[in-house]
């Protein structure tokens, strides 16, 4: 995405700013200001000061509400509001052996890092096979995720990126389709399980549902999401890439999750 280069383009500021062709020393005026000299901690990083963070929070939430297809705005909202959640998640990961391995290895999920051939060849019912089945049925790829821009700490930026990339695995675990209702149900689950404020804000999109769908959501899917997500193990501590061969039902039992009510899954009629 364009944003990946944006950080390098705005970093290149050294020497003096020229105003009215008079040289104004940068050291005194601009050294501590983030606005003209943005030093990035990782590729794609765009540091924001508190005002900019608030501005982007408001702007991205309005934009995401008006046009939910703006994945970049949903992503931005998650990042600007995830300030308190990310350290907690990182600490939860550090408390678990699997989570520590994830933070150490920092695995990435993309069509470059996954061996689809091997996964498709696994037996039915295994996580790897069911994940590839879900990708095919829903016609998505693991490459459509926006990179992280607005999280300052590189490790927390990785945690955010990991969440974004493993979101599809949560879909695949329950076989959830990618339409509005299953997505909202999953957001409720994620809010209870992970705690991102943005997942709760996303529930604002439920106002756009038709009456019948809205009723089912509020009476069946939302309660499932909250109960199931709240009692399950934190999904960020799951090293999915070590579990391709594992049966999906065994994974569900281990994590303490159960399927949502009928109507959201690619497996139901």
């Amino acid at each position, binding site marked *: 995405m364009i944003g990946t280069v944006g950080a390098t383009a705005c970093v290149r500021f050294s020497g003096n700013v020229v*105003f*009215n062709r008079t040289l104004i020393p940068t050291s005194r005026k601009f050294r501590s200001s983030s606005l*003209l000299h943005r030093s990035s901690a990782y590729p794609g990083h765009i540091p924001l*000061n508190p005002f*900019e963070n608030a*501005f982007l929070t408001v702007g991205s939430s309005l934009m995401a509400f008006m046009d939910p297809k703006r994945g970049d705005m949903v992503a*931005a909202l998650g990042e600007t509001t995830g300030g308190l959640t990310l350290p907690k998640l990182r600490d939860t990961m550090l408390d678990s052996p699997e989570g520590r391995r994830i933070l150490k290895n920092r695995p990435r999920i993309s069509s470059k890092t996954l061996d689809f051939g091997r996964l498709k060849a696994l037996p039915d019912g295994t996580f790897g096979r069911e994940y590839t089945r879900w990708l095919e049925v829903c016609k998505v790829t693991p490459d459509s995720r926006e990179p992280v821009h607005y999280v300052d700490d590189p490790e927390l930026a990785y945690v955010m990126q990991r969440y974004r990339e493993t979101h599809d695995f949560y879909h695949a675990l329950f076989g959830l389709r990618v339409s509005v209702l299953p997505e909202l149900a999953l957001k409720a689950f994620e809010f209870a399980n992970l705690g991102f404020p943005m997942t709760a804000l996303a529930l604002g999109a439920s106002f756009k549902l038709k009456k019948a769908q809205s009723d089912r959501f509020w009476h069946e899917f939302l309660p499932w999401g909250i109960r199931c997500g709240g009692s399950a193990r934190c999904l960020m501590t799951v090293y999915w890439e070590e579990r391709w061969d594992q049966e999906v039902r065994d994974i569900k039992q281990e994590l303490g999750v159960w399927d949502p009510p009928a109507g959201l899954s690619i497996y139901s009629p």
Partner: protein
Amino acid sequence: MMLSQVSHGAKRTNRQLLAPILLRKNHGQATPNNSQLSGRTASFGFRTVPEESKVSLVNGVFDSMAPTYDLMNDAISLGVHRLWRNTFISTLKPGHKGPIRCIDVAGGTANIALRILDHARKEYGDRETTVEIVDINAQMLREGFKKCEKTIYHNTPQVSFHVANAQELPPSQFKDNSYDLYTIAFGTRYCTSLPAVLGEAHRVLKPGGTFACLELSTMRNPLLRTLYDRCSFSVIPLLGAILARDRDSYQYMVESIRTFPCQAELAGMIKDAGFATGGDHNGGAWRDLWGGIACIHTGVKE
């Protein structure tokens, strides 16, 4: 959609066909044609790039910005840019001495051209004034064409669209001494060489013709200037990301304002190009708008 009225006056600007597409995905990474590198550089925002790259970099920026250009102008300036453009036209009073031939450079989305024609028509009943809109970027001209389609000037000789580089207007099409009014609004800071642009303006204007430039400039008051800088560097790239999905083009835009010559410098360059200007003060060779956020420079060809 075919732009039947677009003429491609400068093939050289299209020589790097892939460059704008690649640059849109990889903003700011200049890809100069190595065999023609002159060693001269130009500013692209806060970056310095080979002069030869600036045209294609700017083209890439405007390819991205074209569809949302007018919306972004309104969002960034809270609509104030419309006031500035109106003031620009009311300063120039096109048509008050009879129908004139105008050239509006970097005028892709037709904001100035339509104002010129409307002013001539409404104030003086003039239906003969013509405006030739010139822009280096075809996407911007496409947006201007779509806008003109909704007006009475569509399919009339009063407005026409041309792809060309302001520094090298093809002489066969833009002949010497042929225009009464040359306007350039919010496009000067994207040009690679101001003297070249001014030279061409001087060439194509008739003796006695007017050169007029509307551009973002330097605020006079240092406190307000600092506040303005902070706000624009914070808000404008974010608005670009939110509304136009394009942070980089708007980051470039705010940087380009800072690297542009100030009022007195630009007035000096206009004078050097052979134009007669007013005195070296606000109200003379230039007129500040909103404390210097924008500025109108004028000159008359002797």
